[in-house]
């Protein structure tokens, strides 16, 4: 039930290749769900400027500046991070602090980022933001599983070219 696929989200930028995750047997990736929701839901259009800042940040990182560590920040780090893990759940750090949206991700390298889902942060803590609690928990699940898959070589990481692939490149990167 918890199986998911790691797949490309935007791989045409020179500085960063963005990946996403999709629950197995579902049509939309988690990041597409985030984008679809904020693009198409009429009642969420008042978040449009915040959303656009996230979009611009992804584009500028991909095109020009790379996925530097400081463009990301931890979310509820104490709860989120297993002490010895090398992969953490982060959120994109978007310029203006008035931004109330969060898009979770894991930054694997300066040139590889896996984007997850996100939503509206309505209070100081994620646990008090109903729109984020499930997505944050899922993001933790994705980040841990991806970390494990990379360590166990179920996902191969070509750091030079920013490419993730299955051991057999024609296979999907399915994670159990």
């Amino acid at each position, binding site marked *: 039930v918890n199986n998911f696929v790691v797949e490309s989200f935007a791989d045409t930028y020179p500085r960063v290749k963005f990946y996403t995750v999709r629950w197995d047997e579902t049509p939309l990736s988690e990041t597409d769900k985030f984008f679809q929701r904020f693009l198409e839901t009429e009642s969420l259009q008042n978040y449009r400027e915040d959303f656009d800042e996230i979009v*611009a940040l992804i584009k500028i990182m991909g095109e020009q500046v790379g996925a530097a560590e400081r463009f990301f920040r931890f979310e509820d780090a104490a709860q989120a991070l297993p002490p010895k893990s090398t992969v953490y759940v982060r959120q994109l750090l978007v310029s203006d602090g008035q931004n109330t949206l969060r898009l979770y991700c894991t930054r694997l390298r300066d040139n590889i980022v896996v984007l997850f889902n996100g939503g509206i942060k309505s209070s100081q803590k994620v646990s008090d933001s109903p729109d984020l609690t499930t997505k944050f928990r899922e993001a933790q699940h994705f980040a841990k599983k991806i970390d494990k898959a990379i360590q166990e070589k179920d996902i191969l990481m070509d750091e030079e070219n920013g490419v993730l692939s299955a051991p057999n490149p024609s296979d999907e990167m399915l994670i159990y």
Partner: protein
Amino acid sequence: MVSNYFQKAVSEVKPETEIFVKHYLDITTCILNLMEEHGMTQKDLAAALDKNASEINRWFKSDHNLTLKTLSKIEALFGVSIIEVNKPANFAEKSTIKRTRLASHTPQQSANKVESSIA
């Protein structure tokens, strides 16, 4: 491969939003580099600018916009220019012309012109 939703979102981003994010990334990167060159921590920078360390932290953690006044203080502190204004060769000359035109066309003259056209 690029997600269709992402492509759509990128195509709809307003130019000013992209410019704002780019400026923010460039300016904060520039300040962080200057701090690193001078072996300065956020606490040191706060002390030098007479600000709270928490405020400095917010600049880099996205909770606070830098003001032009603060940027000027940082430029003075490090003795370098962080923001540059594109000025054409005849920038000063053009500004003078504009001011001259404005001065020769006072609000009273404009009002008179309107009145005479109504009459």
